[in-house]
């Protein structure tokens, strides 16, 4: 169910097959595992059996003697030849390396790597390596990790606290003092991530003759080439990242820096292509790809009528042993720290600690999903405390459509929105009153049944300003994306993007926007991925930004190209650019429309006939545009107020669940969602992004957790232990669009890659707690697994 934003659009918002799908359904995508050059060596890694231990000695002589083994490398060797991997925070004494050096910091951490002629031989060799460890007591609990006498994960750092901050936006104490009521609560987001079906893989190939390190990787990482070059201590323009590798799902987590540094080092050392493809256990236990693991302690000040005035939020996140950019997931949510609500003031205390668990990476939404779960829980609790309807309380707090652009206390302006209209649409889609009746009927039949409600803001477009809030050394305000467009001498259009893609349909996005602007058929436009040396400045397909940033760059490039086409045509029509009209690639004399130049003629002139070109126009037909994020470019003010992301999409979710009171099993019978990402570029892609995010949110809410036993052993090393939703766990999701165009983007588009994952966990939690309400219990820890619920209902063993 959908409506288009502008009826005069040729291609944008229209249904169109997704370009990328053709190669994927044919089995002819090229993923990193499909790139195996002649002479390629294969890496296997030896994991630490202990969560925390001193490495006393490593004996690898037998492994080195095994036929087919080309190198055995330890952390000591790597530390001598490479730099520690870049991390977001300024932590000079928290050194992150591909292989443990002197000490292991989690069970599953890589200790030794073997490169061999086949991965089987490499794995055989691992069994011949003897490591002498001196086990130490691990620290696993983030609250205990902050204690003075806690074992230190990184002794040189002197504490397990990586970051602790306090932000005060607005008159928090005054608002609390003046409030009719206050409440406080704790919610916990479990350690999970978005775990793609393709594990992380990377192939590095050093060519001494050209001083080039070629990299193929299943990557989704800003500044990837920069980080590789820095860690390997080689010039940045020696590194060539091939962005035309298809990535088998990423959703934030495909970062793979340590893997790449390891194989890059080995390739240079051995003069051969070297690849490392994680197996599933390595991926889950030791890939440094766990997600947020967060405890929120929140206080809310509100009035008797349900208006929320202020919130005090403490967010404690367990980044694991190696934080990477993970802790920034505490800062990005500041961009929508009050959600869609008119909350006057906020105190926010983010804390990131290190522990003896696998390291953390950014996950879809970059911290927004846990934060939204906390915000929506707060609203439900206010409704509960006052005996008010949950939907009515949301309505009373929503920012109204007339109030946009709306400045929130932390200094970010929301661009546009119509939250009431979106909520109305989902209620209508769900036939909400009937749904409540169905719930009552099921309750009368002896089942526990619940209807959930959650909304979410999706900050989109990206920016780096949140980094500066946590680390003033990160004085970076540029967050650009680029697109080139070329028309060849036969008139065919090629769009060139500078990043890879991992299922988001970026080629379709670029083709659609170029086709829209140039009035040409998108299906005939080819879109390619320049490698990191050939492409123009870019960041990465993260931060729900590509429709805005790559789409905007494509529109800008197309407009520049069109200007050039018009100038060439006007010159040949003997008139001026303002006296002609462009239509579908042809240019006509406005005064005499019979006089015209067709697209093919203009392309031929541009490429072949200098004598017909106007003065000052270079040969060929090409243009590029590099777009800086709208509203970016300013550092925070003295009150830590700053514009973070530029555009704010919005969703409202309503799931209907049943809960078996005997087993604790939750079944989601129905799921409704209304979403507003401004102008939709491709409706199928948007629907897929939204619903796919919902499914991952269902996983985070009910099933997925990277678990450790009390001794620090990892116990989620298979898909039978780390449970992801199958088609049996995800209902057919009904969705409806709404369109509030963004005033800041080329076609009114906003991001939509994250919203489903931001709203669903909160919505499922709301539904489960609604189901539990008749029993007088509630649950505030994700995932809400069957056994947890059963314990809650039946008192455990």
């Amino acid at each position: 169910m959908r409506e288009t934003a502008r009826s005069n659009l040729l291609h944008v918002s229209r249904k169109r097959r997704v370009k990328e799908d053709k190669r994927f359904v044919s089995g002819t995508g090229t993923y990193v595992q499909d790139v195996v050059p002649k002479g390629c060596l294969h890496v296997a890694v030896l994991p630490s059996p202990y969560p925390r231990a001193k490495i006393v000695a490593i004996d690898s002589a037998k492994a080195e003697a095994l036929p087919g083994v080309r190198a055995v490398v330890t952390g000591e060797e790597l530390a001598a030849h490479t730099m520690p991997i870049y991390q977001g925070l300024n932590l000079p004494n928290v050194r992150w390396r591909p292989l443990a050096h002197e000490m292991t910091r989690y069970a599953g951490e890589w200790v030794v790597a073997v490169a061999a002629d086949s991965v089987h031989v490499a794995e055989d060799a691992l069994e011949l390596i003897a490591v002498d460890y001196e086990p130490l007591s691990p620290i696993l609990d983030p609250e205990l990790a902050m204690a003075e006498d806690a074992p230190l994960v990184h002794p040189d750092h002197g504490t397990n606290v990586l970051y602790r901050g306090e932000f005060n936006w607005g008159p928090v104490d005054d608002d609390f003092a003046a409030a009719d009521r206050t409440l406080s609560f704790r919610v916990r987001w479990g350690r999970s991530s978005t775990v793609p079906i393709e594990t992380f893989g990377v192939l590095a190939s050093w060519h001494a003759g050209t001083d080039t390190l070629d990299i193929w990787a299943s990557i989704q990482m800003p500044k990837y080439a920069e980080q590789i070059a820095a860690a390997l201590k080689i010039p940045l323009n020696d590194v060539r990242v091939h962005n035309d590798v298809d990535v088998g799902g990423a959703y934030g987590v495909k970062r793979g820096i340590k893997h790449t540094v390891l194989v890059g080092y080995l390739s240079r050392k051995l003069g051969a292509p070297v690849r490392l493809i994680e197996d599933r256990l390595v991926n889950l236990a030791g890939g440094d790809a766990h997600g947020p693991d967060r405890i929120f302690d929140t206080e809310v000040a509100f009035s008797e009528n349900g208006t929320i005035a202020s919130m005090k939020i403490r967010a404690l996140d367990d980044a694991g042993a190696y934080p990477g950019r993970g802790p920034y997931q505490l800062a990005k949510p500041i961009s929508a720290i009050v959600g869609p609500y008119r909350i006057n003031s906020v105190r926010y205390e983010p804390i990131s600690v290190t522990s003896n668990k696998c390291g953390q990476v950014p996950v879809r939404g970059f911290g927004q999903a846990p934060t939204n779960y906390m915000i929506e829980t707060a609203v439900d609790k206010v409704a509960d405390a006052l005996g008010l309807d949950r939907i009515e309380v949301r309505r009373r707090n929503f920012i109204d459509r007339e109030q946009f652009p709306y400045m929130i206390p932390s200094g970010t302006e929301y661009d546009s929105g119509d939250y009431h209209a979106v909520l109305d649409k989902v209620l209508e889609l769900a036939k909400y009153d009937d749904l409540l009746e169905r719930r009552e009927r099921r309750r009368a039949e002896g089942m526990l049944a619940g209807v959930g409600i959650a909304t979410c803001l999706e900050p989109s477009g990206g920016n780096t300003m949140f980094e500066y809030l946590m680390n003033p050394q990160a004085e970076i305000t540029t967050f650009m994306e680029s697109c080139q467009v070329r028309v060849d001498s036969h008139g065919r259009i090629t769009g060139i993007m500078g990043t890879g893609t991992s299922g988001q349909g970026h080629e379709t996005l670029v083709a659609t926007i170029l086709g829209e602007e140039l009035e040409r058929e998108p299906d005939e436009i080819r879109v390619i991925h320049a490698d990191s040396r050939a492409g123009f400045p870019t960041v990465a397909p993260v931060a729900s930004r590509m429709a805005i940033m790559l789409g905007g760059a494509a529109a800008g490039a197309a407009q520049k190209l069109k200007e050039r086409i018009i100038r060439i045509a006007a010159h040949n029509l003997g008139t001026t650019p303002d006296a002609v009209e462009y239509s579908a690639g042809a240019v006509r004399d406005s005064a005499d429309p019979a006089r015209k130049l067709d697209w093919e003629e203009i392309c031929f002139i541009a490429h072949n006939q200098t004598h017909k070109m106007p003065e000052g126009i270079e040969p060929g037909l090409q243009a590029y545009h590099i777009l800086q994020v709208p509203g970016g470019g300013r550092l925070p003010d003295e009150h830590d107020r700053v514009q973070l992301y530029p555009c704010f999409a919005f969703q409202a979710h309503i799931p209907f669940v049943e809960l078996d009171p005997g087993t604790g099993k939750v079944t989601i019978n129905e799921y409704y969602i209304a979403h507003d990402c401004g102008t939709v570029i491709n409706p199928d892609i948007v629907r897929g992004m939204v619903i796919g995010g919902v499914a991952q949110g269902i996983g985070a809410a009910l099933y997925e957790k990277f678990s450790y036993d009390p001794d620090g052993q990892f116990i989620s090393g298979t898909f039978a232990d780390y449970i992801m939703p199958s088609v049996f766990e995800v209902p057919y999701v009904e969705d409806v669009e709404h369109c509030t165009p963004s005033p800041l983007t080329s076609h009114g588009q906003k991001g939509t890659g994250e919203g489903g994952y931001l709203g669903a966990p909160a919505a499922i939690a709301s539904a489960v707690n609604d189901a539990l309400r008749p029993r007088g219990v509630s649950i505030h820890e994700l995932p809400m697994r069957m056994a947890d619920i059963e314990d809650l209902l039946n008192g455990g063993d």
Partner: protein
Amino acid sequence: MSAPRRVSLTVNGIERSGMAEPRLTLLDFLRYELGLTGTHMGCEHGVCGACTVLFDGDAVRACLIYAVQAEGHAVETVEGLCNADGSPGPIQDAFRDAHGLQCGYCTPGMLISVKALLQATPDPSDDEIREAIGGNLCRCTGYTQIIDAVRLAAAKAKGAGT
């Protein structure tokens, strides 16, 4: 480890043979010995279904079978679902029309499971569709557009048959 031996089988209707150590999985054999990289590795323990192929007509996990066990058998992979000219076949086209995929990584296994379903049950109910793809994890789509795609593939096949 013991020496590689020759394995001969039928893949997508064509006689193929290659060398395999006894411990080599059918998945790795297809991918690295025969060069059929459409079949993907997801978990190597039989849960995710990314490596699903037809083995004598049944949908099975290629990561749980050794290549030597396939000696003399008939295997069909995603490449075999294409038309003779390499263009997408009807099930594949239905997935394109419904955008029943995103990153494409689980897609080959999903398509094979759907092929097995529609061979046995040309007009499946939604429950039968769920049953058929219940062993194929997709992390991108949330399955809704995949269900749309299977419904579409079945409807098109029905239309084509009448």
